[in-house]
């Protein structure tokens, strides 16, 4: 089981030979703009071991994708200011220069994007793009790269891969394109795979196939997977651990069962509550009222307080005035002023 660590202040279990596979400490990303500094990610902490799947959940603009791009080093060379630490195989992904980061990208860390049509280059054949990913990191002939790419296309379930190799992305269906993206991300067998909303642009039937495929390949290679999504159904299906993000902060983190059945943050409760279910009689969805906070000007208190229906329960206006720390209990963390018993009574009252 993967460990979700406590607040940044606590010292990591350092010095031992068993350093986590990926350890992110106090990761923050800020974008200076004409209107001020946008705090997209604020003090993220998490660890991940090989073979494990971490789901990062949150609504649009909560900082999920920015977190993944910071880990991939894709923000290097932009105006973004990335601070904190992300230790991966003894290297700090945040501090690593672009040239060294490039060696890791594709080889050690693979990435799958949301919309496979726009993520694939329209002018090159699917096979060429996959073989290209192989050639960057392997000393191989073009013929060997082709063989590897055809093999990979077969492994991701594309029928007659030898023919499909020479086709262009626009010849592929949405699901096939995402399979091709997965083939491209996995051709060098990276130990860490980051999937940024990999099923959002796909049909529901295809979504399940893609998730199965990713889980299967992950098992084969014993890689770690960070799955970014806003779909809690997807999370329930494939994740071991979950990190709920809101306003660039982690508001709740823990094992997937704990998040679903022992929910400890009002925002997560709201997310779960707004999920449509097949067997409920209700005809209307239950959205969380209000808007996410502006990342230009985050409130002093709890970031979620303005939309939280339970803010008064904590008393003394503490929710509006004081930013809660991420408090851990049995590997399950919450960033909320409400006490355990208070949350339990809230959960039971629904």
């Amino acid at each position, binding site marked *: 089981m993967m460990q979700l660590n406590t607040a940044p202040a606590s010292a990591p279990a350092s010095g031992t030979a068993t350093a986590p596979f990926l350890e992110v400490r106090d990761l923050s990303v800020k974008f200076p703009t004409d209107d001020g500094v946008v705090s997209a990610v604020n003090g993220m902490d998490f660890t991940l071991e090989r073979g494990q799947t971490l789901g990062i959940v949150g609504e649009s603009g909560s900082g999920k994708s920015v977190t993944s791009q910071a880990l991939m080093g894709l923000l290097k060379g932009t105006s973004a200011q990335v601070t904190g630490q992300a230790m991966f195989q003894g290297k700090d992904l945040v501090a690593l220069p672009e040239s060294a980061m*490039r060696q890791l990208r594709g080889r050690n860390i693979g990435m799958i994007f949301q919309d496979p049509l726009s*993520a694939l*280059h329209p002018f090159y054949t699917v096979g060429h793009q996959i073989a290209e990913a192989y050639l960057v990191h392997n000393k191989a002939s073009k013929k060997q790269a082709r063989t590897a790419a055809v093999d990979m296309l077969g492994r991701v379930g594309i029928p007659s891969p030898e023919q499909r190799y020479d086709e262009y992305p626009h010849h592929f269906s949405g699901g096939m394109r995402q399979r091709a993206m997965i083939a491209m991300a996995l051709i060098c067998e990276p130990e860490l795979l980051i999937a940024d909303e990999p099923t959002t642009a796909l049909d529901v039937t295809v979504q399940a196939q893609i998730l199965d495929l990713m889980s299967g390949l992950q098992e084969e290679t014993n890689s770690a997977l960070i799955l970014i999504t806003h779909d809690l159904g997807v999370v329930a299906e494939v994740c071991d651990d979950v990190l709920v993000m809101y306003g660039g902060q982690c508001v709740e983190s823990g094992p997937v069962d704990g998040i679903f059945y022992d929910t400890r943050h009002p925002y997560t409760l709201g997310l779960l509550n707004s999920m449509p279910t097949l067997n409920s009689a209700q005809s209307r969805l239950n959205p969380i009222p209000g808007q996410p906070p502006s990342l230009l000007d985050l409130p002093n208190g709890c970031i979620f307080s303005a939309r939280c229906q339970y803010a008064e329960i904590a008393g003394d206006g503490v929710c509006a005035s004081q930013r809660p720390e991420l408090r851990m209990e049995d590997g399950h963390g919450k960033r909320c002023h409400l006490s355990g018993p208070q949350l339990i009574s809230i959960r039971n009252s629904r």
Partner: protein
Amino acid sequence: MTTFIIRRTGSLVLLLAAVSFITFTLFQLGPSDPAAAACGQECTPERISEARVALGMDQPFFVQYFDYIRGLFSSRMIGAPGAQTLCEWPCLGKSFQTNENVADIIARSLPYTFSMAIGALVLWTITGVGLGLLAALRKGSPVDKFIVGAASVGVSLPIPVTGLFLLLLFVNQLHLLPFTTNEINSPFGPHGPGAWVANYLLPWIALAVLFSASYIRVTRTNMIETFGEDFIRTARAKGLAPRTVTFKHGVRAGITPVVTMLGMDIGLLLGGAVLTEQIFSVPGLGFTAVHAAIAGDLPVTMAITMLAAFFVIVANVAVDLAYAAIDPRVRLQ
């Protein structure tokens, strides 16, 4: 592919027919009287009507027009009855001014126009695309701002200003370059490629200043847009070198609008750069066309107008083919 060629050839013929008819009609409606011009200073009404017969202008409009069109397909006789001369195929008529075969005039002018167009084209493509790309890569930096600023200045400088300034500076003041001469119209001529370059360098620069400005802006805008595309992020995520990301993935995708512009501009320029040829006294198609139009020399004007239209249309077809080569999505099935 065959359908494509047939369709494009068909539209080429139709367009040329339309262009020739319009030019012919405009000329008839216009105020110029080539017969009066041809009969010289001591002119009598008799001599004017003689000249009119000799130029074939006594015939009805449609007879004149179809005689002209006939010449495009076969040799024909030209001139007053009794004094006819043979105009060999392809017969574009004979100049009203010099009685010279128009096809010969065109053949003489073309190398000058080609010489000017080719160098200018190479120069402005390299500077335009190169600087545009540099500006896009350094977006927001002082380099970018300088290039964009220079492009704004360049695009607002008319050819007479840059042309005369270049002549004044490099020929008149610094004596670095010779004044343009009619003797050189090819890099393979007796004077050699060096003299050819020296002869045409200033017109090239004058044209390049004007044209590269818009190429800089189009390249910059499109490259900035392309560098923001998802597939560029994918290319980076694969661990590709920045050079590969920029050129193989970025430039190829972002360059298509430049190809379109290039095709149109080549077509236009081959039809004759009127002002530039005038200022640098290069006797190319533009120069010849202007003088023919002023003198009311219908056959020469017609021929150059149609040739210019032909170049534009062919350039369009070339653009379509280039598009298919660059972008597989528009490739013909």
